[in-house]
């Protein structure tokens, strides 16, 4: 229904007709998940484990607010630590959803259909996790709203030259547009769930959130226009958010941060980590919920290709940093480059190289790309690698800067780790709730694909 292109690239889309899919079987297969709640034991186990993480997060935040950011390992000179590392990591993960939904939509990559809903949800949850950190990391979080431009009696405004202010706009815009995009896409499916729900309460709730959707032709016309518009709005945001996160660093004069390559390199890294996270989540879930017919090996393979492509851009970013350090001859830049590779954090650096550059090269043979175990392993490695990359950028640049007298080390504390694991718990718990209450694959879009096939056949 989205694409009116007559010659769809058939190899790129799942072939619902081949697997005997019909409008009603799609609706049944997918709505079955939120309405019938299969695999209950898996769900409860997973959810409770994740919920324990949420509790850890709550406890960590409580202790943090009670004692101050000193409960973390940050210090002078490493005044930013896990909070910023995790923020950038989560924001990066949050890029896959919008990239898949919006950019691939605009590029008519219809294989995105079966994963878009899930990745959009993942994006929202990752952005939610990311959004916590900048607030927590403030010395006086009670005054976070001073970052927002609002007219006050003293005529005080944010200091607009600071990239941290740009961050506030970029991230909040991105979160808003992503939420809207996701919610608009959900409307037809919410209506389907309303219609199929067994209990009065469910009917009421799904009915409330479906905003009176009746599948009317005018509804569809407005819906498609709005959806495409939002896709158009969201597409540049994919680039802008992580560019600005990159500028948080690049604007500083700190060697290791002060680099023009950062914005594009951060965007590529974000998509890289986002796709890795999608693969990490989708591979087990499609198995558990028996969605192999919807999220096929073909999908996984295509994502693997994107992963490899992004991996090379990221590798180029690493190369460019070292090349710049060498070419400019700047004493401090050169030192930072050498210190990363040979200093006290060298094991982290080489782990980064192994995870982000070496591991994706496994995917050159088609057989390995289609092997879900290998793919899962590579995706996991990239997730770890991208986290380590942010750690390297934040910590190794700060810990040895201009004056050797100020050099120090960064040692994360117990509370650093619980806060990090806590946001992972929050992320997973939200995903589980999503699987429980909302359709993980867009029924409406899948139905339209079948419809298209049938028309073309």
């Amino acid at each position: 229904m989205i694409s009116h292109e007559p010659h769809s690239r058939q190899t790129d889309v799942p072939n619902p007709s081949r697997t005997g899919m019909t409008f009603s079987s799609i609706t049944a297969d997918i709505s079955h998940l939120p309405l019938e709640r299969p695999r209950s034991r898996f769900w409860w186990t997973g959810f409770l484990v994740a919920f324990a993480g949420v509790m850890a997060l709550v406890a960590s935040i409580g202790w943090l607010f009670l004692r101050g950011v000193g409960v973390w390992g940050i210090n002078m000179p490493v005044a930013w630590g896990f909070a910023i590392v995790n923020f950038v990591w989560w924001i990066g993960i949050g890029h896959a959803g919008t990239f898949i939904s919006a950019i691939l939509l605009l590029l008519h990559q219809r294989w995105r259909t079966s994963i878009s809903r899930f990745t959009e949800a993942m994006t929202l949850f990752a952005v939610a996790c990311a959004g916590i950190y900048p607030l927590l990391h403030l010395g006086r979080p009670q005054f976070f709203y001073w970052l927002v431009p609002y007219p006050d009696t003293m005529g005080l405004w944010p200091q607009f030259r600071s990239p941290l202010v740009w961050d506030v706009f970029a991230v909040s815009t991105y979160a808003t547009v992503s939420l809207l995009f996701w919610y608009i896409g959900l409307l037809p499916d919410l209506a389907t769930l309303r219609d199929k729900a067994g209990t009065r309460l469910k009917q009421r709730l799904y009915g409330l959130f479906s905003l009176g959707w009746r599948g009317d032709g005018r509804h569809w016309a407005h819906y498609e226009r709005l959806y495409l518009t939002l896709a158009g709005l969201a597409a540049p945001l994919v680039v802008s958010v992580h560019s600005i996160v990159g500028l948080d660093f690049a604007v500083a004069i700190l060697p290791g941060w002060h680099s023009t390559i950062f914005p594009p390199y951060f965007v590529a890294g974000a998509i890289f980590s986002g796709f890795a996270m999608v693969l990490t989540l989708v591979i087990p879930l499609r198995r558990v919920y028996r969605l192999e017919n919807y999220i096929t090996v073909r999908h996984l393979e295509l994502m693997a290709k994107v992963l490899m492509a992004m991996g090379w851009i990221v590798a180029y970013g690493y190369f460019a940093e070292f090349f710049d350090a060498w070419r400019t001859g700047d004493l401090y830049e050169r030192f930072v480059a050498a210190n990363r590779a040979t200093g006290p954090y060298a094991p982290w650096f080489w782990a980064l190289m192994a995870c982000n550059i070496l591991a994706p090269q496994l995917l050159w043979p088609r057989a390995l790309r289609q092997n879900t175990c290998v793919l899962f392993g590579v995706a996991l490695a990239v997730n770890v690698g991208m986290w380590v990359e942010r750690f390297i950028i934040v910590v190794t640049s700060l810990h040895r800067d201009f004056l050797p007298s100020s050099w120090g080390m960064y040692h994360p504390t117990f509370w650093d780790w619980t806060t990090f694991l806590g946001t992972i718990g929050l992320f997973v718990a939200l995903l589980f709730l999503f699987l429980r209450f909302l359709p993980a694959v867009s029924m409406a879009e899948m139905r339209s694909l079948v419809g298209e096939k049938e028309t073309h056949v």
Partner: protein
Amino acid sequence: MSAHCHSSTPPAFPPRKGNEFLPGASHWPADLSRREFLQLMGASLALAGLAGCGRPSSEKIVPYVRPPEMTPSPDAAWYATAMPWQGYARGVLAKSIHGRPIKLEGNPDHPESLGATDAITQAAILSLYDPDRSPAPLRDAQVSSWEIFEREWLVRHSDLAARKGAGFALLTEPTTSPTLLREIHALLDAWPEARWFQHTALPRYDRDGTQDDFDFSAPDIILSLGADSFYQHPAALRHIRAFASRRRSENNALRLNHVFALEPTLSLTGNQADLRLGLTPARIGVVLNALSRALEGDDLDSATAALSEIERRLVRECSALLRENSRSALCVVGPELPGEFHAWADAFNARFARDAAKKKPALRSDGDQRASGGLGALIEEIEAGRVSNLCILGANPAYTAPAGLDVAGALRRVAFPVHLGEYVDETARECAWHLPEAHFLETWSDLRAYSGTATVLQPLVEPRHAGRSAAEFIHTLRTGESRSAYDLVRETWRAGNDSDFETRWHGWLDRGVIDAVSAPRTRTPSPTATATASFPRFPGEMAPRGVTVLFRASANLHDGRWANNAWLQELPQPFTALVWENAALIDAGLAARLSLKNGDVISLETSDARLEAPVWILPGQAPETITLPLGYGRTHGGGVANARGFSAYILLGGSNPWQRDDVRVRRIGKSATLVCTQGHFTMEGRDLARSLTASEFAKAKREEDPAVTLFPAWAREGYAWGMSIDLGTCFGCNACVIACQAENNIPVVGREQVARGREMHWIRIDRYFDGDPAAPRVLHQPIPCMHCENAPCEVVCPVGATVHTSEGVNDMVYNRCIGTRYCSNNCPYKVRRFNFLDYRAPEGSPVYLQSNPDVTVRERGVMEKCTYCTQRINAARITAEKENRRIRDGELRTACQQVCPTEAIVFGDLNDPSSHVTQRKQERSSYRLLGELNTRPRTTYLAKIVPDSAGESPRAQESFA
């Protein structure tokens, strides 16, 4: 300054008894245990009834009538007084606001201060408010009172009087106080059978009834033999001021002196040498023998045949300089070195020093004819059963006694031991009675400076607790009656029927020096050496006997009496930057031989004692030596002092108390974490602390103006504040660090927080090892905020909490700061400090009484940093505007500038072409730190300038990694 202070009596403290004992008042309570809390609560309940023990005071104290030129708060008053420093006076001006003394500054009129102070003097104000100070008399560890003591004493007094004092012994520290000595002598007169002993934990400065008096500005050559004339010496501030006058360029002109040092362990004085060798005392003797032969005309090659290359270089350069007749030279010897070195130095000075070295009668009571000896003599007396009443004044022998002397055991044999001291310390616990002593800002007293000048110490406040002065106490002992310290001091100085006394007394209090009265003793020492006498020879170096262990006073805690001062505990120690504990300073070669790295624990064993200590490798330490800093490892020094580091006193002993060769040293396989504020001591080939030879300086050009920038330049109207710091004269004494802490309410964060890298000092002293590894040199570089014109911090703050003022100061707006810490990340000088936790003292803590009311106490989660003492700038501006004029140059000084003994820090208005700071910045050695970043710092540096010969050795920085 306000006139009403003239007639004011010392104001009393607000009644805060209930809160006084809040725990960890002076440091962040990282882990206050429940038990500790209950103990303290119990103590404060027990003492709650004692409120109101203070005695009324009706004496007049006299403020400093002509106060220093900056007077921040209109109701601030300055009083000239003095701080006891090793028994001598160090003149200070105490600043009092609303009746609270809040800061000590040097007294420019006092010859041993000249307006400057050192770090310990700066920190002394905190001890006034130390919650651990003894609050009440204790009888067998139970709270008692002075009245009960006096009643009990009266019984003994009549008995003693009948026996002419037989069985009575007094133990004091050596002092210069005329009133205290008068009281002691009066007591000995009244009771001829009583005995007086003196104990000091540290070396004496007198020999044969004389003390040396040196002028460091005149000689062209200075040879230091293990001396710490610039830091530990009672006249250190005068010495370093004079010395520094020869080490800086003025109007691009130099008159550098040449400095050589031979010392076993790196000292702040030895580090000023252009050529410094770390040698054992025995080896120093060998080098001096060669130098003697060279000076007596022997062939240089044969004289130096037994020496190493670098030792030969020292003898060659030193003797060549000395042979130039026009030059005068001075040799100074550390008091820890044996007599033969002093004899050699006397011979040297007789020949070369001209008027720069004089001998004067000793001022301190070490050699007093009426004293019966030291601690050893006292213990012998006790063992012989001849002491039934013992009064200990101020000294802490139970902590500072060498291992061979069993002080606790001896005290148990005394029927009636009494202790007067500021703390319930190790000695107090062994005595039947402990009586609180008044702090020097709480009572009347008098002291002489090393130069002989006397000062009346006037109190600024009533004693916080029931403290009395030592002279009052002795008076009570002798007469059984109490008499005020005020009367006793006045009696000392009232010469007969002096009608003019009140005027003169007023004048003495006003200026802080008694200039009309000459030193009491006039015995002139006979010169021990003549200009033609030959140099005494040292015995040749013995075969290696193993490790030499040296004992030295700690730079921060001295003999341990400052151990409960959290500012000094958290002050990075010179050269090591260690805080909150001491370490065995070990030579790198010895460490390698024993396969030790920093923090590894060694065991040091003698026949009668054993000590475990973590090691710290110190470049410049003499081969096969270990230096143990004294003053740590207190067991009953107070909450801050206890269990910090180890006490090296238990190893003291032998014929030479400051050195032992019979210590078995071995590695025991344990390791400890030492906390240090600077983990990296090389410059990594970066151009940070600059050093130029004299000829490089002659060829140097003034640094160009900074490069272009896209940012619009700041308009330079009104004032343009700036600072210049001279690396040539900064010798790393840390006075500025503590002065800044006292002025700006900078919190102490505790050992654990420093270990995490969260110390809060607004000005720090960076230390870089440089030069030849065989004769390393440490460059000191004080780093306050640079107040950049293109400040990287200002651009990145999202809320505009750090902003530029029209006068070029980079301000912190604490109220606006939300704590993103981006400013710190972007600061290339890393001068910003963050309140990671709530570092403020607990509510109700007495240390708040020290706080400067003109400076905000910062809360958790905000960034802070050097403000160029903005409160002083504003105060000066207000004064100037009231008088309708501009702020005069020199009228306004930052806290770091004011205390600096070498005047290395100069601050002022860059728009004033005649200001001192503008002049300084015209020197060719002026440069910007990290100037290539184009931050345009307002704080700039003058490179250290050394004689050409000092620049010869190749730079080999890698060896200090």
